[in-house]
Every structure is written in structure tokens, then in C-alpha cells.
């Protein structure tokens, strides 16, 4: 994990370094930069050190959880991450809840009731969800569900500060695209398992259909889905940028979006590195989850 993180840091740092444009200019907006101000910023952040020195310094500071300072707000990047990440984590949990409930649930229904009207309906819904961009879906939900139906449902338009109901629209929005893929994937894998020999054996020995599906077929059919979920955490974090921006949620995604558009490089770098670490940790957890699902997989 350490070499991956280090490689990512170097890669992101160099990428930020070679992007054309002037980070000092972005601090003053559409105005000329005075020589004095340029000098002061260069000295404050050591911008004229050679690139390897800057990267070495950055990595050295990271070990002490010093992610540097935002040139724009002059706040510690670690403070920004600390106050925004919990919101993203909560949103991700809400998203995963919808993913599992609606994605896996609808996939199972489709598989068990293959070629029924329900199956067709789910297929249609997944196609619509996959082809609707996250920000469009978010905005539509805000206008037609939160605003037009506010007296009926009382869902907030933005923010996460109104308890559990605040998570419904952003959670659904965040989960939307992956939900559709998961649904399709679950349908296919479950259909495949339902036709395998051991399921036929289970049926032959007279097990009730519910036990055949849940205890025998589903557990195996879940492995590809869990693999996909693990890989998909990247999509979820990417989707968080859009979802958080649309719903004005103070999470790392929105912080990153703001930092990118204001060219607040230190914040972009800090959040990116942090997200890389989170991604790796989640993937590790997913690997461990295999063992729970499939007794044949054992880590030694």
C-alpha cells in the first residue's frame, strides 16, 4: 500500500505542476499580479524550490499529517479534510444503503421473476438511471420532489442538517448509476447460479424455494457484485463530487470541486492523496469480505 500511495502522490504532484497556468494569478482573480505579491507567495510556499525537493518536503510533512495550507483561505488542508470527510462518509453510507436495497434487491427480483412485467420495469428503470447524468438527476429531484412536494414530503433541498430525511435524495442520487449496474449484474449472476447443478440438487432434495435462493444461490451470486462494489468506490467518490455540489453538502467532493475551480493546488493535492488512501482501505476491506461470503477463500 505504501508504494502505491507514494506513487500516487508523486504522480498527482507532477500533474498539478505541469498544468499550464499560474497559481499565483488565481489568488487575485482577473487582475494583474504585483511583483511584490508574487514574491511573497513564492517565499511563503517555497514555490521556487526544485520539484524533487518540493515533493520530498511534501511527503515528509505528510508523515506528520501536515497536508500544507490552502493558499486561498490560509487554512490547514487537514482541517478541511477533517471537517468535510465525515459528511462524505455519511453520504456514502446512505448511498450504499440505496445501492444494496434497491440495486441488489431489484436485481434479485428480476432474476427470480425473469421475463415478468416486473423484470421489464426494472430493466427500463435501470436504463433510465444509467443514462441520466448525476447532476441532472439531482437537480430534477430537487425541483420536482423537494420543492414541488415540500408540503407533502418535507425533504430538504440542500444540506445534510435535517436528520435522516436529508440523506434520501442525495443518497439516491449518489447511488443512481451504480445502482443500475448492480441491478443488472445481480440479475445475471443470480440467473446463472440458479441454473447450476448444486442448486438443482438443493431443489431436488426438497428445500423450500426461499432457502434455495437465499442460502444456496444468492451467496455465490453475490461475489461478483461485491467485487464490483469494491471497484466501484471510485465511481462513488467521483459521484460524490457532483452529488455534493448539487445538494450543497460540505463534503470532500465539493471541497475538491471548489479547490479545482479556484486552483487551490494544495487542497486539490491533499484531498486527492486522502481519497487514494480511502480507496485502498476500502478495497482491502472488500477483499476481506470475500472470505465471509465464500468459505473456499481463506487468507493466511
Amino acid at each position, binding site marked *: 500500500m505504501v508504494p502505491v500511495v507514494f506513487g500516487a502522490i508523486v504522480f498527482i504532484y507532477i500533474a498539478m505542476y505541469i498544468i*499550464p*497556468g*499560474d497559481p*499565483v*494569478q*488565481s*489568488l*487575485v*482573480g*482577473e*487582475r*494583474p*499580479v*504585483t511583483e*511584490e*505579491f508574487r*514574491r*511573497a*507567495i513564492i*517565499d*511563503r510556499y517555497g514555490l521556487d524550490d526544485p520539484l524533487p525537493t518540493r515533493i520530498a518536503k511534501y511527503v515528509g510533512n505528510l508523515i506528520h499529517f501536515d497536508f500544507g495550507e490552502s493558499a486561498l*483561505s*490560509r*487554512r490547514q488542508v487537514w482541517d*478541511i479534510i477533517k*471537517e*468535510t470527510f465525515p459528511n462524505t462518509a455519511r453520504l456514502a453510507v446512505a448511498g450504499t444503503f440505496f445501492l444494496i436495497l434497491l440495486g441488489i434487491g431489484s436485481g434479485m427480483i428480476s432474476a427470480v421473476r425473469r421475463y415478468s412485467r416486473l423484470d421489464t420495469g426494472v430493466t427500463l428503470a435501470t436504463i433510465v438511471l444509467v443514462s441520466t447524468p448525476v447532476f441532472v438527476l439531482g437537480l430534477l429531484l*430537487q*425541483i420536482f420532489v*423537494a*420543492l414541488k412536494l*415540500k408540503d407533502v414530503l418535507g425533504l*430538504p*433541498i*440542500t*444540506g445534510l442538517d435535517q436528520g435522516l430525511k436529508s440523506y434520501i435524495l442525495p443518497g439516491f442520487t449518489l447511488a443512481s448509476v451504480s445502482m443500475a449496474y448492480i441491478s443488472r449484474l445481480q440479475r445475471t449472476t443470480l440467473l446463472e447460479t440458479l441454473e447450476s447443478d448444486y442448486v438443482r440438487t438443493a431443489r431436488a432434495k426438497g428445500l423450500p424455494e426461499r432457502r434455495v435462493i437465499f442460502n444456496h444461490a444468492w451467496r455465490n451470486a453475490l461475489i461478483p457484485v461485491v467485487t464490483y462494489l469494491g471497484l466501484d468506490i471510485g465511481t462513488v467518490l467521483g459521484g460524490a463530487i457532483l452529488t455534493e*455540489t*448539487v*445538494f*450543497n453538502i*460540505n463534503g470532500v467532493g*465539493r*471541497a475538491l*470541486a*471548489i479547490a479545482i475551480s479556484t486552483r487551490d493546488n494544495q487542497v486539490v493535492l491533499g484531498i486527492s492523496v486522502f481519497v487514494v488512501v480511502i480507496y485502498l482501505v476500502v478495497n482491502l476491506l472488500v477483499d476481506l469480505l470475500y472470505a465471509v461470503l465464500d468459505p473456499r477463500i481463506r487468507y493466511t
Partner: protein
Amino acid sequence: MDISDDAKTLTYTLRQGGTFHNGEPVNAAAFVRSFTRVAQKKTASEVAYHLSGIKGFDAAQEGTSDTLPGVHQGKDEYELVIELEQPNAEFFVRTGHLVFSPVPQVAVSDPKGFNEKPIGNGPYMLDGAWKHNVSVGVKKFAAYNGKVKGFLDSIKWKIYAEVEQAYLEFQAGTIEATDVPPEQFADAAAKYGAAFIDQASAILNYLLANNKNAPTNNKMVRQALSMAIDREAINKAVFNNQRVAAASIVPPVSRGHRAGACKYCTFNKDEAKRLLAESGVQITGPIELTFNSGAGHEEWIQAVAAQIKQNLGIEAVVKPGSTDFGDYIKSLDGLKGLGRLGWGQDYPTPDNWLYPLFYSTSPDNHSFYVSKEFDALIVKAQQTLDDAQRLALQQQAEDLVLEDMPVLPMFYGKSARVYSSSKVASFPVDIQYANPAWELVSLK
């Protein structure tokens, strides 16, 4: 406030007994502390340039000195003296800018802490923690001894990444006032009537003409180009009337604005053709039109190009410039035609529009306009203590610019706000700074 006859020394008599929200006195020392902090190199302030002109400012910026000798206490702790390098009878207008506010000691001893918990000296003080990018609140400061004490007990600002979100929240009734996104101006005006307030903002979008390179180095060519553009039509077609067609340099919200000061800003195709013919300039190649990409300027620049083509019969090509503003500005040096730029006012005075954009040695003068007459008028105005005389000189200078047309004024911005008419009794907007005057806002 008193200005010396040579317009180089300003003496402020401060109100006695004023304190910061933490109880520290607001005296001359608080201002000296603040100005020095802004000017010092180690602060690296992007707004320090507003203090330029104060004695010792350059040395403090370069880091060769840690003090700002041009600002000091007068005869007692309630007298503040500002000494300038050059005469400037209007420096006092500048001091309305936020960067001239006094700061308490903690701003110097613990800048990071002060950054998190700002302490001011106005009618409202910070209420609870500032939740970055979420909300910030203020409450009435009981010990405030100024004239306008404010009508609201507390104010909470919710922070949105996009103005559209705030407007949705306003429609749902969760917030009492907000800015309105430009595309909703018409909708909001119809829905909210008198509770919808729109006004021109002190931001001018203009087309810079390169005054060194042909063919825009000829004044009549510039006049002709300006008259060939139908600003109203573009405002309607491209901006849905969300801008104000410009016919002056000094904007409608600024002191000294004169409607229609620019006679070459009126659309007149025949006159434009006549001026171009009379200039004697044969335009052979196409005229370049450029803009900084990615900031929403392409459409109206395209419209300008189409109009120049149609009304003057000159080929005009649109060349999108860099998205990086620094690179874009540099590219204007070699411009052969017109380039989009904008200017927003820092202080409500004509000088803030004329000196930076047109004074021959100003770093913001990208048109390479050089006029000894103009420079002399501006310098003379800066030395003139009498308000009316100074304004007359500034208007003469503006007239000169509007005759030479080094730039083509195009559009002023427009901003709009709505408030809840069922809850809010009065919602005045400060015209000069285009922000609600919060100390005057009151509830029903």
C-alpha cells in the same frame, strides 16, 4: 477627517470609546497595526495594493522594512495620520475598502486563530463558530457605540456553492433573502414584484483595442468599430437583457456617472461606415476578436464579430484566448484587433475607473493608451481638494477617453436579489458596493 493643502496628509479623528468585540479599544494603534500587517511582505496579502501610495509601503512590501512609517498616531490616541508619497485628494474614498478596517491585537499575535474567529468593531459580532462553506452567523454587539446600531438581533448566512441552490431554498421558504441567478431574473421579477431588486453593478465588460498595432491604432477605426456594434441587440439576444448596455466608462452606480457620455457607443451603421471611410485606413486582413476562454464570453464575442462583419463589411475572426487569465493578459500585448476585458470598481470614484485603465504607466492599462493630456488631467484631479472641481476634471478626462476610444465600453453587469415580503420589512442594497446594507435591514 482633514486633508492637508498639499493633499498628502490625511488626519482622521476617531470616535472615542469605540471597542472591538473583545473589548479592546479602537484607537489609532489599531489602525496602525492593521495597515502595517497588510503591507508587510510576510502577510502576502493579495489586497495590499490598495495601500500603495502610503509612505513606506514599497519597502514593507519588498520585505526590507517591517514597519509602515506613513501611518501613525497624531496628537492623541484618537487621532490617526496617513501620509502619502504623492498628493491624492481622493485617498479618503479608498479607505472605505474593507482592507482599511482596524484589527485587534490577536490578528498579529495569532493570525490563524483570527482567521477562524474574526473580531471586528461593527454593530454585529460573530455568533458561534464559523462553519466553513456551510454557514456563518452574527449577533448584535451590545457595546457598539456607532450611529447605526442595526435592526436585526442576529443574521445567519448560509453558504451555497451555486446561487441556483440558494434560489431554490428561497422558493421553498427556508431562507429569507438571496441573490438571484441571472437566468431567473425575469421569472423572479414576475413572481416577487417589489421584493425583487435588480441594479447595474459596478462591473464593466469592455473590448480592449490595441492602440499600438494596426488597424486599431487609428482612433477613427476604433470609433467606427464601436458604432458598428448594436449593444442593445446583443444584450437582448445573448444575455436575455440581464446586462446593461454601456454608454460611459464611469458606471451608473458610481459617483460622477453621466448617461450617454459615450457618443460612439450608440449603434449607427451609416456613421460607422462614414468614420471608417474617413479614417483612410484600408483594412485588408481580418480583425481579431479574442476573449479569455471558459468564462462565458464566447457567445457575445461571436455576436460582436457578426455585427462588425455585417455593419462594416470587415472580416472579423474570433480567436478564443487562454483559460488562464495571466496568460490571456500577456497575449493581449500582441493583439491585432479587440480583446475582452472587464473592470470592477474598488472604490466609488471616477478615478478608480480612469487612472488604472488609461493612465500611461498603470499596470492595468492594456490598451497602450498614452495621452499626455489625460495623464495631466488625472494628476491634477488627484491634487484638487475641491470636490466639484475634481469631479469636473475627472469628467474632462473621461470625455477625452470617450473621444479617443482606447477601449470600447460594452456592458455593465447586473445583479439581483429577492427577499421574503411576508417577513422582511426593508431590504436596502448598498448601491456602491452592491451588497445588502445589513445594518439597515429590518423584519416585519
